């Protein structure tokens, strides 16, 4: 090509970014990398390695150590040794370290960007303009949290040693999302980068150590799935933070069940991208480019499911196709492209197979006739229209540059289609009518909603999903809590096995008998006979039968879930209304306080005074959550754009609660009240040994205007009912307090729909201690934060 030919055809030519420095770095390591443990590179003990390739050409980049058990042990030992001193540093000292890391990223921004583009295959524009600057922003932001930790998180302590397993789609950015908060708040880290893309993590660890990060604070162990599994199952790791597929996330939940490891899972998605007929259509078309052709569509929150209002669908699709014709696919280091390479041949094949399936199931495929570079893993931007919700491409995450499009008629239908997914990560809403856009944003089951925008990220705004897109948040204050634990819970003791006295039958006598009160179950606002029609005796500590309760079974749980799902109005009730009802419950409980105290004493053998104290504490706790109901509010983030991100705490939905064996009334109230205060509907299983305080509570609820289905109570075996709740895929969360086995069971069985779990691993809380058993520590677990991004301007 000459000036004259360019002048005539006005094509772009190529604009390659130099890779000299990146190659020089690889050469300095002679193309071989060990793990980075305790401040230095070390080879795998086994000597085993694997290779990482350039996706754009298939060329070998480097040989990488394959982490085995000894390697992971060494990294954990180093992290463990460093954690104490690291946490003991002042927040200010850690802030200085984090600040230095942020500056380091900026100083070496281009080198990191080029290495990332080579290793991952993504365009240099994205690593240079998005990934690396955002990574630096995360370190700056979290330097700030380190600085403020002593005052802002005074009641919290670091979790400890954290294992972090990150994906290949944003290798360096995900490192920042994981490492920055963990280190800032006093944890130490074993990071496993994805096997396809280990290089920037190694580069960063090397540079961080050279700039003064103490040994052992950040360890990088490379390897494939088995290495990840070794980290996940390591006994001396306190927390696992994982970003990746839902399939692996589920496995991690199962493997860590009962281990006491805290868990953050950021998983897959099939995020809706909703275009209303009053949208700026050209803007929405451009939005699709950023939604699904960003990073070749290998984005967990990619707007992959286009939902277009029927009336504008033809013009929208026509303009989208025209736009696709101008997309350019090229080498990652070409500065004049929109898309580059798919990370690996196996991913390319998976994308092609799914698209073929979609077409076989009736979708029309559009691909622009643009040329792809020769060699390497490249895939054309693809649009599938006429996709029916039954098609595999409408439900499965393709994780490639493939948008599927469907139409809707009304806002209600848009919401219904959008939420009709097992996932709930992100969503994008396009409308120029503020009322419509915000209405829909509020109703979408997603952790992040972008209004007239897509794929915006910031360190101050939490990111994370609902449903099978995982749990936990990254970024912002809510993200910090993922790396902290309450100080008040340290030193909790394993609870003693509840005594099981032998039942003693009292001989009848000739006095006026007590009027029989048969406690049923409380479902949908009504007292209902248990499905199986069996009862179980309730014994005093001395074995005296003090009553009988229904033996609930999984059908009763099913019925209770139906009732709770039907009570969705509670979640949209005003906070003032919910507060009033909590106060009213307290009022009605108070008027029958003496009766409840007697019952507690009779069941538990507690002294009259301590039973009265429990009742009074329960009333106070109801008051506390009545107070919180209209005060546990969201935050308005100010991300670096003209606009706001509203962090709104939303109820999780239908939550099961297995109450602890002790504190039959206070335990129930302490768990149910925070849940309903923020709008959840509850199915509570009361103390298995002392359930009568809960069954007596039915009439309190009935007289307190609690809408039917908001609180359901099913008595019976804690274990059996926990199993039914944990395995129920229409239950959104499950709280379980009891034996260690119960915690294991709940976590293990929760994987069907990846419900949020909150368990105590058999370690009991002092329910009378407000700092341990009341307030934000519970409210935080009762909500998911949804961030609604609203850029504005005219």
């Amino acid at each position, binding site marked *: 090509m000459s*000036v004259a030919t*360019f*002048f005539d055809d*006005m094509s772009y030519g190529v604009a390659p970014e130099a890779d000299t420095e990146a190659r020089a770095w690889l050469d300095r390591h002679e193309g071989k990398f060990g793990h980075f443990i305790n401040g230095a590179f070390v080879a795998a003990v086994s000597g085993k390695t694997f290779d990482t390739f350039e996706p754009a050409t298939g060329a070998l980049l480097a040989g990488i150590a394959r982490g085995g058990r000894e390697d992971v042990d060494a990294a954990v030992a180093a992290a463990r040794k460093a954690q104490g001193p690291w946490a003991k540093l002042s927040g200010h000292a850690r802030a200085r370290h984090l600040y230095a890391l942020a500056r380091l990223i900026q100083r070496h921004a281009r080198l990191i960007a080029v290495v990332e583009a080579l290793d991952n295959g993504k365009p240099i524009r994205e690593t240079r303009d998005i990934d690396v600057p955002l990574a630096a922003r995360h370190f700056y932001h979290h330097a700030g949290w380190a600085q403020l930790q002593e005052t802002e998180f005074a009641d919290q302590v670091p979790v400890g040693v954290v294992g972090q397993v990150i994906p290949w789609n944003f290798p360096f950015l995900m490192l920042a999302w994981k490492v920055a908060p963990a280190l800032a708040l006093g944890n130490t880290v074993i990071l496993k980068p994805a096997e396809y893309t280990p290089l920037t993590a190694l580069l960063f660890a090397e540079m961080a150590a050279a700039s003064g990060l103490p040994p052992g604070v950040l360890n990088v162990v490379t390897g494939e799935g088995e290495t990840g599994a070794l980290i996940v199952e390591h006994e001396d790791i306190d927390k696992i933070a994982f970003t990746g597929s839902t399939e692996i996330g589920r496995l991690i939940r199962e493997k860590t069940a009962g281990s006491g490891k805290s868990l953050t899972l950021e998983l897959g998605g099939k995020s809706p991208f909703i275009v209303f007929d009053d949208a700026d259509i050209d803007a*929405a078309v451009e939005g699709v480019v950023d939604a699904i052709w960003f990073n070749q569509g290998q984005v967990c929150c990619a707007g992959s499911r286009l939902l277009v209002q029927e009336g504008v669908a033809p013009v929208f699709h026509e303009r989208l196709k025209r736009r696709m*014709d101008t997309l350019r696919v090229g080498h990652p280091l070409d500065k004049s492209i929109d898309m580059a390479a798919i990370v690996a041949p196996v991913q390319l094949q998976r994308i092609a197979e799914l698209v073929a399936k979609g077409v076989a199931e009736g979708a029309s495929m559009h691909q622009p006739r643009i040329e792809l570079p020769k060699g390497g893993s490249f895939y054309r931007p693809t649009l599938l229209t006429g996709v029916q919700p039954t098609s595999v491409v409408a439900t499965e995450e393709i994780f490639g540059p493939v948008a599927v499009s469907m139409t809707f008629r009304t806002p209600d239908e848009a919401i219904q289609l959008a939420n009709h997914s097992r996932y709930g990560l992100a969503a994008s809403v396009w409308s120029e009518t503020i009322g419509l856009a915000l209405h829909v944003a509020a109703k979408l089951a997603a952790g992040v909603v972008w209004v007239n925008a897509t794929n915006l990220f910031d360190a101050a705004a939490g990111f994370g999903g609902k449903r099978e897109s995982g749990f936990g948040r990254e970024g912002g204050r809510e993200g910090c809590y993922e790396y902290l634990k309450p100080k008040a819970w340290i030193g909790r003791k394993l609870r003693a096995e509840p005594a099981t006295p032998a039942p003693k039958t009292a001989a009848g006598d000739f006095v006026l008998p007590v009027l029989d009160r048969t406690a049923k179950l409380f479902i949908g606002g009504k007292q209902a006979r248990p499905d199986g029609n069996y009862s179980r005796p309730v014994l005093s500590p001395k074995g005296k039968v003090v009553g009988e309760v229904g033996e609930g079974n999984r059908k009763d749980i099913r019925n209770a879930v139906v009732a709770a799902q039907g009570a969705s109005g509670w979640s949209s009730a005003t906070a003032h209304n919910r507060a009033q009802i909590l106060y009213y419950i307290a009022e009605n409980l108070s008027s029958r306080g003496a009766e409840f105290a007697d019952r507690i004493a009779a069941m538990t053998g507690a002294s009259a005074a301590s039973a009265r104290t429990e009742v009074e504490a329960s009333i106070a706790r109801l008051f506390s959550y009545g107070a919180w109901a209209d005060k546990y509010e969201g935050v308005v983030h100010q991300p670096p754009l003209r606009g706001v991100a509203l962090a709104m705490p939303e109820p999780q939905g239908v939550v099961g609660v297995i109450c602890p064996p002790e504190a039959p009334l206070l335990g129930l109230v302490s768990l149910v009240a925070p849940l309903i205060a923020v709008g959840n509907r509850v199915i509570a299983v009361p103390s298995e040994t002392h359930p009568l305080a809960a069954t007596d509570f039915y009439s309190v609820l009935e007289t307190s205007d609690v809408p039917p289905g908001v609180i359901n109570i099913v008595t019976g075996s804690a274990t059996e009912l926990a199993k039914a709740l944990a395995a129920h895929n229409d239950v959104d969360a499950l709280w379980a307090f009891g034996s260690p086995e119960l915690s294991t069971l709940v976590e293990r069985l929760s994987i069907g729909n990846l419900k949020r779990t909150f368990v105590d691993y058999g370690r009991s809380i002092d329910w009378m201690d407000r700092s341990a058993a009341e307030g934000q520590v519970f409210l935080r677990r009762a909500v998911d934060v949804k961030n609604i991004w609203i850029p504005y301007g*005219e």
Partner: protein
Amino acid sequence: MEDLALKSTAVHPAGAGHNWPRNDGIELDLSWVLDQRVNFSAAERRVQTLPGRRTVKKDAQAAWLLKAVTCIDLTTLSGDDTTERVKRLCAKARQPVRQDILDALGMGDRGITTGAICVYHRFVSTAVDALEGSGIPVAAVSTGFPAGLVPHDVKLREIEASVADGAREIDIVITREHVLTGNWQALYDEMRDFRAACGDAHVKAILATGDLKTLRNVARASLVCMMAGADFIKTSTGKEGVNATLLVTLAMLRMIRAYEERTGLKVGYKPAGGISAAKDVLNYQFLMKEELGRDWLEPDLFRVGASSLLGDIERQLEHHVSGAYSALNRHPIG
């Protein structure tokens, strides 16, 4: 890589020609006008990210800059303009880039000139004489430029006078009040009259986007002017507080595209004011190509109203040829 976006069948000779069917306009379609919505933040993101998605280097960059030269409406619109000043500008329009540089680029025989000369009515005949034989059209700003607040009949007479003096292009200013008060019918009627007064001369409608303030106003005004028969829509007079920006460009280009979708007619685009650096004009070219296509990179559909831009392009071209950074005084003044 082969650029398949290049699908144009039109011939693109150097120098300004008018190689497409003229836009004779259509009936005012008010519902279409009022239907226009522009999301400001989304538009902003598009123009902010574009320079990261498109760039040209080396020979391609030289070619694109040279193409930009052929699209420049070399302009002088000052109160102190004189005939000699205008003649000097015309000489520069004939030979905008030093011949030795063009030769070194392999473009010495292409007859590279600017797209047009743009002056006030008073200097139209001077410019026509000075450009005789060059094929370079003379454009006259008109209709009470820049504020556009003289009586309507005076505006029409001004247009007719410039056309009579040999102006082949007329840059009119719209009455901003019509846009700011939503009086689309008045805007349409005004523009229709201007177009009729121009006869065979091509008319560029200056929207004065800096006065219109919102992208929504810009989009609606663009559409109305096209419906009324504008051959080009143009951002600004160069005299408003804010002149051409990529953001208003995006809004206007999308209207040109929508108009073509509906009518099949290609309307040209002219940003004016504030484009003084070579790298700036490249971003405008990228936006033209991305939003409208290859055809809109030629002077019959793209003009840049500028005075100091040429000097910067000359320096860049010399740098490309010699490898050494250049200075303004090495290139003849215009």
